[in-house]
């Protein structure tokens, strides 16, 4: 650094615009005969400088603003006391918010405008001119700094004693590693995310129940054209891990005309007289696919607008999602309630690296 060829300052004294010729201007056009800076234009006094009445008025304005600010503070405190929040009265929340807020607003704005007006109208209207100096400082201090490093290097033998230096680097690289390992504890030690992602609460015989009440659903009660939000039996009563299970097991149940359903041959018996159940969790990034268009049998994800065609085994017809929504095979039990035939045959929800078809 100390041996920089471009010694001296990057910027010449304030009197001229000329750059130091030793510093490369690159491809900048350097005009041999530049225009001369005309210098500062003549000072124009403000109206408060020339008219004592206007000066007085500005002074009054500033004072009034500061008193207004005090008034605003008092107002806010008074509003706090006079307009409490009454139980079960939402209008009182609004009043409390509005009146405390407006008082605080007055307190703040008045002091702000007052100080700025004072600065602009009354404080001496001067502009100063500071000289700029090269940010790199003087050659002398650069040399001195380089010398300090050179001395430190000589005295410590940092460059010379390569064995010490390299082992130190090794130690410094190694010492944070245990901290990295500690981060494994962020999630339960004995669990594997891939395994968890592959399974949901659904299994053979699990009844389909209403979200959120948990009441079982009779096939006969699902009317044509309806869409029902479904959770597995037992989820509603869970106290631990309820949302984690729900985030995987949420299902949308729809009844279509059986003739409108274009079912895959291997899934022929996954529906029950036009009733189909699909995972509600979008295969894009996992939002609930909650909007059902009855006429077109399309499902729309409100987050990123992926659209799925229920009639066509929930294939993606538009949007960033790639995979169809996984289908839950269903049937009815002896009492006529809808039940799952098994768990989903593939992981539900967003794609993940270890997911294999």
């Amino acid at each position: 650094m100390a041996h920089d060829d471009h010694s001296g300052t990057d910027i010449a004294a304030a009197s001229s615009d000329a750059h130091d010729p030793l510093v490369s201007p690159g491809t900048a056009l350097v005009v041999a005969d530049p225009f001369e800076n005309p210098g500062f234009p003549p000072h124009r006094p403000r109206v408060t400088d020339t008219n004592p009445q206007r000066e007085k008025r500005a002074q009054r304005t500033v004072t009034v603003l500061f008193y207004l600010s005090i008034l605003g503070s008092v107002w806010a405190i008074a509003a706090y006391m006079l307009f409490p929040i009454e139980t079960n009265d939402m209008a009182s929340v609004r009043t409390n918010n509005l009146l405390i807020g407006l008082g605080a607003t007055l307190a703040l704005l008045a002091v702000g405008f007052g100080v700025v007006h004072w600065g602009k109208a009354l404080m001496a209207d001067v502009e100063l001119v500071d000289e700029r100096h090269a940010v790199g400082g003087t050659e002398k201090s650069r040399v001195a700094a380089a010398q300090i490093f050179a001395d430190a290097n000589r005295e410590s033998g940092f460059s010379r004693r390569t064995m010490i230096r390299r082992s130190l680097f090794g130690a410094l690289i190694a010492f944070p590693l245990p901290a990295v390992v500690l981060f494994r504890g962020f999630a339960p030690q004995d669990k594997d995310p891939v395994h968890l992602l592959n399974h949901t609460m659904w299994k053979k015989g699990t009844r389909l129940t209403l979200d959120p009440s948990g009441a079982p659903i009779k096939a006969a009660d699902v009317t044509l054209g309806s869409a029902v939000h479904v959770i597995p039996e037992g989820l509603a009563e869970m106290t631990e891990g309820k949302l984690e299970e729900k985030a995987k097991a949420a299902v949308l149940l729809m009844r279509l005309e059986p003739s409108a359903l274009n079912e895959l041959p291997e899934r022929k018996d996954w529906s029950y007289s036009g009733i189909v159940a699909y995972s509600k969790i979008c295969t894009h990034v996992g939002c609930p696919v909650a909007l059902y268009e009855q006429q077109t049998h399309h499902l729309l994800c409100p987050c990123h607008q992926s659209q799925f065609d229920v009639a066509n085994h929930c294939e993606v017809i538009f949007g960033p999602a790639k995979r169809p929504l996984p289908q839950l095979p269903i049937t009815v039990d002896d009492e006529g309630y809808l039940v799952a035939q098994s768990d989903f045959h593939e992981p539900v929800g967003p794609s993940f690296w270890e997911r294999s078809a």
Partner: protein
Amino acid sequence: MSTATTESATSTTSAAVGTTDTQKRSFTASAALYLNERTSLAGFIKELGRKAFPDHWSFLLGEVALFSFMVVLITGTFLTFFFQASMAPTHYSGPYVPLKGVEMSVAMSSTLNISFEVRGGLFVRQMHHWAALLFVAAIGLHMLRVFFTGAFRKPRELNWTVGFTLFILAMAEGFTGYSLPDDLLSGNGLRIIDGLIKGIPLVGTWISFLLFGGEFPGTAIVGRLYTLHILLLPALVVALIAIHLVFVVVHKHTQYAGPGKSPGNAVGPPILPIYAAKAGGFFFIVFGVLALIASLFTINPIWNYGPYDPSPVSAGTQPDWYIGFADGALRLIPPGWEFQWLDRTWSFNIIVPLVALGIFIILAMIYPFLEAWITGDKREHHIADRPRNAPTRTAIGAAGVTFYAGLWAAASSDILATHFSLTMEGVIHTLQAITVLGPFAAYFITKRVCLALQKKDREIALHGFESGRIVALPGGEFIEVHKQLDEYERWRLISFESYTPLMVRPDVRGRISTRQRIRGVLSRWFFEDRIAPVTKAELESAKHDHH
């Protein structure tokens, strides 16, 4: 403008603080003396107190950012006294009737408590949210100002990267804060983050698993985000703001070209008293405006959304505005960008937006170094450019803004569709075109506009402006008299840096390195179309033409 030197201030300071005689001093003088003898503050005041601070409305944008951050800190501290970052389930028992008895997390119920039971709590909460929105917006505008005026050039390149990091941290602060109430909207936001992370090759599944402390949503995430939101991120933001401002002191502020101003000076009102008064007053104005907005306008009414549940969602879900560009990027991916390969899932519908945004951010971050390399200019620059005088840079900036705007608009694609009765597909396809092709159009148009404006400037500098005075000549001809600029006005038009394309020449060994070749190509791209600045000779001959 009357100009004084910095010297005048020193005498009074030393008189007040430095005297040791026993004559009676005022209380202020004694206090100042006491303090100085324990802190050496006088030297600091002497150094900084009368610094000239260049003045321009566009320099306020950074101040808005700083001041709204201060408001965020003040209001946020108040909120921490009430908020409980726990995902433990509870049944709501507060005064808001529609949610009575509803199962929710303690985080959500304590947020409702702040809103509905703590007097002024809703006011502070809304001010916190509005101030956070303004904070990010002000940083964005401040960055645009710095970019378009070239205020990132030597010696300020590093400060640009510090500021850019602050921009990213501000968005992280915003997102972590947004997620804390554990309401339906923020929970869906986290769900999207979870899906996004899971789509990252190799490490995604495990990162998500560790972040959420098990399966999504788990019971850990709110507490963890809270630690980030009130400890780690604010500490980083405060530290980087300090560095940012120290840099401003070291470099001194840039200034626009003007008569008397030169690269070698800094012209403006002194820090004490005028700058301090204006900036101090401005802090209260920003604070006051935020208070006004918070008292009049609802933000994030979580009581309408309800607690997080993975099953319901409301139509028209949207993130806070500054996350929109990322959400929009996800929406614009065409169908089918996901593949099975090597028995693994490659989610390009997630990888592509992440990589594209990453490249965008990196390009913006390294732009100052890139431009410095292309121009090869090693001088310090303290005069802010007028955007028109750097046409290619301005055009690149416009392209970047257009790209961002396309992504951002896409985050509202569904709202655009329903609001204007358009098809979802039509909106997405249009925005895809805008995001991909728009930057090129913006680049081209902006560059031409800049060059045209430069031409106009040149014209005015040489031949003056139309005075509106029509004169009939004896021969019957009418002409409009052009009035010459005075020298101060002209100086603003003609004092700017101009660059020429690099002539690539062989080095001493007679070879042209690839590096030089690339630099030559980029330099031609930047500077081939240029309007030459007015020269003295041209001005002289133009004057003769008119007389």
